[in-house]
């Protein structure tokens, strides 16, 4: 029962596994990046959900509110999201250039071409 | 006075090293290049004699170049075994150079500059080994020696040469890095120092099992001593030009090996500890087996250089046995055998090279009757053979005598038997060669080709100098005996 | 006064919810992409409008909140046609053919296209 109460961890774990699975199982480079994004997002949720204070509200300062959730994880994850976007953008830029020079964005094709080149 | 000794010690390593630069600079002019080689050789010899003199005058010193880690230094000292080794090497380098000039020109060899360069580098390394004040310094120069002789072994550049070179480097590097270095580190860990100290450096608290293991690691790790089963590099290196074989067998490489064995026995373990270790006996048998097996294998070789190579493996076994007997006489005999074997074996290789250059023959079965065309060469071969066997009137007599005495001292009768049997085998595989050269007993005229003459004069001069040394060592062994007999207790002379 | 505002809110929110769900049902029921766009339009226009409208009665005197609700509504109504149009145009350029007239009766055919 206590396991069910910590449902946020289960969501994080499921998301993480989904992301990880996509990264590993898909040969398409864009899909891999999508998987990577999901993988990262799961961690964002982990942080945010652990910043939750029982009975606390969103940490936006306002009069008459005593209990806020912990704002620090939000701040941290804001940074992490920016980093994540940068990573995804860079990854996509790489995929564009890979597609230009290999003519494919399928892992198997690229691997095959590299092996032939060696 | 001290300063000049220090300077001599520096110069004896620096001169060959400077010769390397000189050889590179004069590489385009063979005469100049070989002049540099010879001059450097003579200077080194003079320096070695100078150091010997000063040693006799009672000068003792240790020079530290730098300290790598606390207590771990690169330093050099004067000590009788090292001086003996330096004298042998210093004497044989100019002679070998002289011989090499004749040989290399006669053979129209390629890459001669690289050859002389590496040769000089090897001598510099030998001097480093000889004067090392601690095991660490010795190890460094030991490795430099390996690396600098590799290009000499593969000199021909053929596939066979490369293969031989790989075996050479592979065995020497593997043994030295896996076992020698580990033994060195283990010694450092147990004793906290690597300095060569008369009587050894291990504290009484060091566990016997560990020290005994270290001894095994040392004997196996010093691959240059060619104790079976790590002897394969020596026959493999036979692909090298003859002067190189001479360098490897007589002057530098193998001698550095057995020198290290003697050094480790006396100054790392100390004879008392060495005699008491449980593994000493087994290693003694291993060395004995090495002596015997090498002699048997030598008998079966038709290629002269191969036969000489296995002969070397056997003779090195004698010296290792001498060290492991852990007696004064054993060390003395072993050290003297370094000198005796050096002069004898270098003569034999010079002869083999001379025969190859003059008669283009390398197989023993083709050498019947060769004595008529090359009498001087074959006579020298005969005398040098006597020295290897240990018969008068050659220097080999004394060293073998001391070794025999040492086996009696230590009551190692099995080893005594092995040494006697091996000497018999030496006779069987060496003496027939000059005998059949002069007396081809089936009476057939094997050689009728008139163009075969004696070897080129430089070679001939070189090999007769060494033969005379073999003989002189019988009559006047004093310099080497004085050094060899004081290795253990370090008695000062001239005081 | 409060009761009246609450009542207005209830009505607007319920109606908004109704249109929201109806729009979504249309999104599911309609036979092809172009017809589904009309259903989506229901959600975007009146669904969103009524819900935001309903919220406007609950601002409790905070005029900033009112303004924000208005700007959200304004923004949705301004941008929703633009994105719909862009989507439709892209679909047309990629050879998505709208089902016309009686073709919509044959659902199987539509699904396969």
């Amino acid at each position, binding site marked *: 029962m206590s396991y069910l109460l910590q449902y946020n961890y289960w969501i994080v774990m499921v998301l993480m596994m989904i992301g990880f699975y996509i990264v590993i199982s898909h040969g398409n480079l864009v899909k891999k990046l999508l998987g990577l994004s999901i993988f990262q997002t799961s961690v964002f949720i982990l942080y945010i959900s652990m910043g939750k204070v029982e009975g606390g509200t969103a940490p936006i300062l306002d009069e008459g509110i005593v209990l806020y959730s912990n704002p620090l994880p939000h701040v941290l994850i804001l940074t992490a999201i920016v980093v994540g976007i940068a990573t995804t953008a860079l990854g996509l830029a790489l995929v564009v250039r890979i597609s230009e020079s290999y003519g494919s964005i399928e892992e198997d094709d690229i691997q095959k071409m590299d092996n032939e080149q060696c | 006075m001290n300063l000049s000794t220090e300077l001599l010690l520096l110069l004896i390593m620096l001169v060959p090293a400077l010769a390397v630069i000189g050889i590179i600079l004069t590489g385009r002019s063979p005469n100049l290049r070989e002049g540099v080689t010879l001059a450097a050789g003579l200077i080194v010899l003079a320096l070695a004699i100078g150091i010997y003199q000063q040693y006799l005058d009672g000068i003792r010193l240790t020079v530290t170049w730098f300290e790598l880690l606390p207590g771990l230094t690169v330093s050099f000292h004067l000590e009788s075994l090292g001086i003996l080794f330096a004298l042998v090497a210093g004497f044989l380098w100019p002679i070998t150079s002289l011989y090499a000039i004749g040989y290399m020109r006669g053979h129209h060899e390629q890459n001669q500059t690289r050859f002389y360069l590496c040769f000089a580098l090897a001598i510099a390394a030998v001097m480093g080994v000889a004067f090392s004040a601690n095991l660490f310094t010795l190890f460094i120069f030991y490795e430099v020696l390996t690396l600098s002789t590799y290009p000499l072994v593969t000199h021909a550049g053929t596939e066979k040469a490369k293969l031989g070179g790989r075996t050479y480097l592979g065995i020497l590097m593997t043994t030295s890095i896996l076992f020698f270095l580990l033994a060195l580190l283990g010694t450092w860990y147990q004793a906290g120092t690597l300095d060569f100290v008369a009587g050894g450096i291990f504290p009484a608290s060091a566990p016997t099992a560990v020290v005994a293991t270290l001894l095994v690691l040392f004997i196996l790790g010093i691959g240059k001593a060619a104790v079976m089963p790590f002897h394969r590099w020596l026959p493999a290196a036979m692909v090298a030009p003859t002067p190189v074989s001479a360098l490897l067998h007589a002057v530098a490489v193998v001698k550095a090996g057995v020198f290290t064995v003697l050094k480790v026995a006396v100054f790392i373990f100390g004879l008392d500890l060495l005699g008491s270790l449980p593994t000493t006996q087994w290693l003694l048998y291993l060395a004995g087996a090495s002596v015997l097996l090498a002699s048997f294998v030598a008998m079966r070789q038709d290629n002269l250089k191969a036969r000489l190579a296995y002969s070397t493996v056997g003779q090195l076994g004698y010296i290792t046995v001498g060290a492991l007997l852990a007696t004064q006489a054993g060390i003395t005999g072993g050290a003297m055998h370094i000198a005796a074997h050096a002069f004898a074996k270098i003569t034999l290789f010079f002869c083999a090279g001379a025969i190859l250059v003059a008669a283009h023959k390398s197989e023993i079965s083709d050498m019947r009757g060769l004595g008529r065309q090359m009498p001087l060469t074959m006579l020298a071969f005969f005398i040098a053979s006597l020295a290897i066997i240990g018969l008068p009137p050659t220097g080999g007599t004394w060293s073998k005598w001391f070794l025999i005495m040492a086996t009696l001292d230590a009551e190692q009768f099995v080893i005594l038997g092995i040494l006697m049997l091996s000497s018999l085998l030496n006779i069987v595989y060496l003496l027939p060669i000059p005998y059949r050269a002069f007396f081809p007993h089936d009476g057939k005229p094997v050689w009728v080709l008139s163009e075969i003459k004696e070897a080129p004069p430089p070679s001939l001069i070189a090999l007769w100098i060494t033969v005379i040394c073999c003989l002189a060592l019988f009559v006047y062994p004093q310099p080497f005996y004085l050094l060899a007999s004081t290795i253990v207790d370090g008695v000062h002379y001239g005081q | 006064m409060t009761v009246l505002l609450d009542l207005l809110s209830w009505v607007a929110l319920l109606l908004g919810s109704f249109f929201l769900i109806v729009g979504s049902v249309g999104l*599911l029921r309609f036979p092809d992409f172009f017809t*589904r766009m009309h259903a989506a339009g229901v959600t975007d226009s009146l669904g969103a409008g009524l819900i935001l409208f309903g*919220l406007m009665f609950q601002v409790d005197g905070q005029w900033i909140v009112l303004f924000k609700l208005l700007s959200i509504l304004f923004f949705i109504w301004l941008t929703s046609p633009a*994105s719909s149009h862009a*989507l439709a145009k892209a679909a047309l350029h990629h050879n998505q053919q709208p089902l016309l007239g009686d073709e919509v009766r044959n659902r199987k055919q539509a699904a396969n296209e």
Partner: protein
Amino acid sequence: MGISMFSVTTVAILVSMILAITRAFLGPSLYDRVLAINVLGTKTVLLIAVLGFLMGRPEFLDIALLYALINFISIIGLMRFFEYSSSRQEEK
């Protein structure tokens, strides 16, 4: 507390979101999916707004506004990508 108008609306929005997600899954064409996601975006904006009132934190409206903006930009970006890729296909 009873049933508040906001919770009823929230449930309605969630139900309609599920329907939209169903369409996104079913497709069949890419445009159907984009359409569904677009609608989903609008509904998310509404959900955030209503949740703000439900929780007594109307400050959430800022987030809703921001979300609407991002939703719009992302859809336009996606469409630009389609236009771009279609013109390239025509070149070939």
